[in-house]
Structure formats: C-alpha cells, structure tokens
C-alpha cells in the first residue's frame, strides 16, 4: 500500500488533464483554448524536470523544441516520397526528434553544465540564437526559408487524416506528452535521482561530499527534459502547424514562458507546472482579448510579487497550507 501511496500525487495531475480533455471535447469552441493550455502545461512539466529539480535555469531550452520540430519536419519532407511507409514516417519523425534533442542536449550539457548559477544561465542564452544563425547562415535544412510540408503530410496520410492530425490528434499527443512528463517527474522524485537532484539543488558541494555524482544526475535530468522538449516541438509545432521557420522555433520567448510557468506554479513540484500552465495560459488568453499587447507588461510585476510573497510558487504555498491534513499526500 505504501508503495502505491507514494504515487498518489499523480492523481490531481491526471484529474486536471482529464478535466481539460473533457471540457475541450464537450464544450463548443473550447478546443483552441484547451489546446493552448495543454501546450503550456506540457511545456512547464518538461522544463520543470530540469529547471525545477536542479535549480539551473536554462535559457536555451527552446532550442530543444526547435530541433525536435526539425526532426519531424525532416523525416516528413525527406520520406514523403516513400508513400508506402504511411504513418510510420511520423514514428521515424518522433525518433529523429528524440535523437536530435538528445544529441544537442549532450553537446550543450557537456559544456554548460560545468558552470553554475548565473554563469550557466548566460552560457545557455546563446544556444538557441546560435543554432538559429547556424541554420540560417549555413543554409542547413533550407536555411531561413524553412520548410512547409502540408502537401507532404497530405500525401503521406491522405487529406482528411492529415487535417484531423493537425486539428485534433496533435493536441491529443501533446496531452499524452504532458502526462508522460508528469509521470517521469514523479518517478524521478521518488527515485534516488530525485533525492540526488534535491541535494545538488540545495548545496552542490555538500552533495558531492555525500557521495552524489552530481554531474551524472544533472546530465540525466538535462537530457530527459530536452527529450520531452524535442517531442513537444515535433508535436505541437511540426504536426499541429506543418511548417517550420527558424525564427519561430528558436524564439527565446518560449523559454521565458516556460520559466514563468514553472516559477508561478512552484519549481520542483509535480503539480506546479500544471497550475502554472493553467494560470498563465488562461490569463494570457483573456489578456490578449481584452488588453492585447499588454500581457508581458502585466506578467512581469505579477511574477515579481509571486517571487517575493510565495517563493515556492502556488503549489509551494498549497503544500504549506495542507501540511498535516489529509490532502498532504496528494500535493507534491
């Protein structure tokens, strides 16, 4: 029983995702909002695996989504001529997205993870910009022209299936990825790696002296987080909108959003990115309707207030409030 109880905190996360899915399915006109919210939750959840658990802020995170998008785009455009492969091309695309984001994260991690704190953050800022300029400047993968593969997708899957993929199934895959990221987070939290990451987040030198191979655990978390980002890019960007342009997929704005979501919800918590994603997504959605252009101007002070008043984020506050009550074991 105790073995199962350890995993109870996944219940509220699943409940939130299920509720979002049901609302989107049953209520007219809600799909678009839900698809955006799901994207933000998944983004936060994936980002949290590294930033939340290690305390390292990776400003180049969007690059992993970018290469993931390219992984899917490349396999669709290059393999479209082999029509008999059908949907397997998408499987290859996910595989390629995984491989590319893993390779990039290993390369970045090998250099940047030797640095700490602000130095790490600064070192990673260059990653997405550098990668974008590399693609544009060296004219790799069509350079700045990008790739549009709506036609290829139609050819592979047929027009109707391709349309259903873009408008429906891509969002479902994002949901699956969000759930996957939540499961990975909880498994990590409950495993030795979770304890190691908490230790190194709090005091890296003391952690080393306690026998923790901090570099190993940091790299594992970094690669895991990057892989999830790669898959998310391949789904939410390549499958949902079948084109890819370097300035769009290497836009630092998404990294900032991921940081806001994680900080808002509670870094290093399981439920945090879900709540952060919902709060951020909903406010952004309505702000863009009622006060278009003012979102960031409003978010900046909100974030400041949150950092000062609830440094542990919304879920951190909830955790403190529910301490000693029956809800305690559900909120992690």
């Amino acid at each position, binding site marked *: 029983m105790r073995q199962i109880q350890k995993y109870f905190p996944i219940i509220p996360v699943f409940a939130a995702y299920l509720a979002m899915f049901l609302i989107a399915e049953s209520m007219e006109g809600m799909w678009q909002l839900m698809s955006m919210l799901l994207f933000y939750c998944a983004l936060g959840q994936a980002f949290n695996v590294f930033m939340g658990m290690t305390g390292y802020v990776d400003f180049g995170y969007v690059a992993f989504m970018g290469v993931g998008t390219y992984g899917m785009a490349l396999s669709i455009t290059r393999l479209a001529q082999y029509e008999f492969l059908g949907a397997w091309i998408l499987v290859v695309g996910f595989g390629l997205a995984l491989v590319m984001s893993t390779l990039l994260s290993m390369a970045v991690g090998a250099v940047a993870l030797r640095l700490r704190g602000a130095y790490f953050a600064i070192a990673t800022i260059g990653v997405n910009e550098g990668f974008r300029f590399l693609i544009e400047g060296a004219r790799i993968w069509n350079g700045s022209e990008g790739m549009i593969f709506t036609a290829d997708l139609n050819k592979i899957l047929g027009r109707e299936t391709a349309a259903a993929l873009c408008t429906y199934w891509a969002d479902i895959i994002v949901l699956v990825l969000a759930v996957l990221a939540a499961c990975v987070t909880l498994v990590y939290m409950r495993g030795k790696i979770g304890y*190691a990451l*908490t*230790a190194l987040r*709090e*005091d890296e030198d003391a*952690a*080393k*002296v306690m*026998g923790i191979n901090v570099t190993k655990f940091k790299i594992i978390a970094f690669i895991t987080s990057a892989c999830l980002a790669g898959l998310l890019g391949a789904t939410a960007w390549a499958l949902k909108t079948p084109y890819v342009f370097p300035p769009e997929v290497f836009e630092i704005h998404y990294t900032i959003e991921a940081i806001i979501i994680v900080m808002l919800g509670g870094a*290093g918590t399981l439920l945090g990115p879900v709540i952060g994603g919902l709060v951020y997504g909903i406010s952004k959605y309505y702000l863009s309707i009622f006060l278009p252009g003012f979102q960031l101007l409003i978010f900046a002070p909100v974030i400041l207030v949150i950092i000062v008043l609830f440094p542990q984020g919304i879920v951190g506050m909830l955790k403190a409030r529910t301490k000693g009550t029956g809800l305690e074991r559900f909120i992690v």
Partner: protein
Amino acid sequence: MALLQLEHVTKRFGGLVAVNRVSLEIEEGAFVGIVGPNGSGKTTLFNVINGVFFPEEGKLTFRGQDITRLPPFRRAPLGIGRTFQIPRPFASATVRENIAVGAMFGTQGHKLSVDGSLEVADQIIERVDLTAHRDKAAGTLTPVEKKLVEIARALAMKPRLLLMDEAMAGMHPNDIDQMVAFIKRVASEENIAIVAMVEHIMRAVIGLAEKVIVLHQGSKIVDAPTKEALQDPRVVEVYLGRAPEGEAC
C-alpha cells in the same frame, strides 16, 4: 595497515602553501583530534582528504587504495564521511530525506533502495532524538538541530572514517558532552575512525581523542597521544606564543 595514510601531501593556493608535506596515519576506529590555530591548514587538509581539492604532491591511501586523484563522490562510497563547520543540510528537504540521502549514497548505497534508505534514516532519527522534527524542512531548524541533522546524515553513510569539522562549535557545553558521548558510542559500535578538527573547544578533544595532531602554518608539528601532545612546548607556543627570551616573567 592504517585506514588512512597521507604521505608528504602538499596543497598550494598560488604562492600560499596551505598544507605542507603532511604525512599521517589514521588507524581503524581511532579518535584523532586535529588541532591548530586559525589558518593552520586544518580545513584544507580535510578538503584534501575527502577530495574537494587534489594535492599537488604526495599520496593518499584509504583502506589500501590510492585515492589521491579520486573525486569526492567516489570517496564517500568507500567510507569517507564529512560534516561541515557551518552545517549544510539540504534546506528544502525534510530531516528524514536529508538523512536518507546519506544512506542512499554512502557505503551501503549500492544495496539500499530508496525505501531502505528511509528506514535507515528513521532508525538514526530515533537514536539522535530528532523524531519531533522528522518531517520538518531542515532549513527551518535551529543551528544546533541542523548540526545534529548533519551528524546523523554522515552516520547514515556508515562511514569507516568520519571527518568532523568543528562539529561542536557553537553548542552549549551540556549538549557537547551529550553529543560527544553519543558519537563516541556510535563510533566504537560501528568501528568508525573519527578525525575531529578543533579550533577552540579543546575540552571535547581532551575528553575523547586518543591522539592529537597539531598543525601550524600548514605543517604537522606534533603527532602524539593526547596527553603528551597537549604538554608539548611547541603546542603551547603555537597557541600562546613564546615568552620573550631573557626577560623575567
């Protein structure tokens, strides 16, 4: 064979020789005090022993294995534990989790599961009387409690050698006596050699240490059984200074 052996170990920081050709041996289960005034190289020596710094010269052998170039996280599983002068518990983690980390990555780490480590933590929490604080975040404790958590975390590693960096500084004399008695008991039960670094609280050392090593400006000047060491004129000199020659006191 000695548990830990240092041969002519030198550690420099630029032009400063922090540890100068120090050789010493720590036997299994021994209780050794390292004494020396501020800046005498005690902390650097500890950092060399547990791998935070690698020495420029010399050789370290632990249980027959050359550990001179071994990173700290590989030394801990061999059985080298450490507490810090200013306690450094993992602040956001609970007391129980802190102590479990010790068990998880210590000498028994490879065969302990997460749950197993938490059980070890529970046993130790009971022994050090932290039960009331078990599920509190370690960052919220008082300094003395933090110190206790740190000692408990180090003991959970089941080390063969425990380096204690001014573990007693800042504690009430009564607490020190209790803590000292407790550490001594656990150390002899589990055959842990303890090397305690002492700057001010000589009382604790005298009560416990079988042997005292005195450092002065990075060099070892005395290495003798406690009583002898404390009467050694060089020790008196290091701490109190020399009487001016030819002057009547």
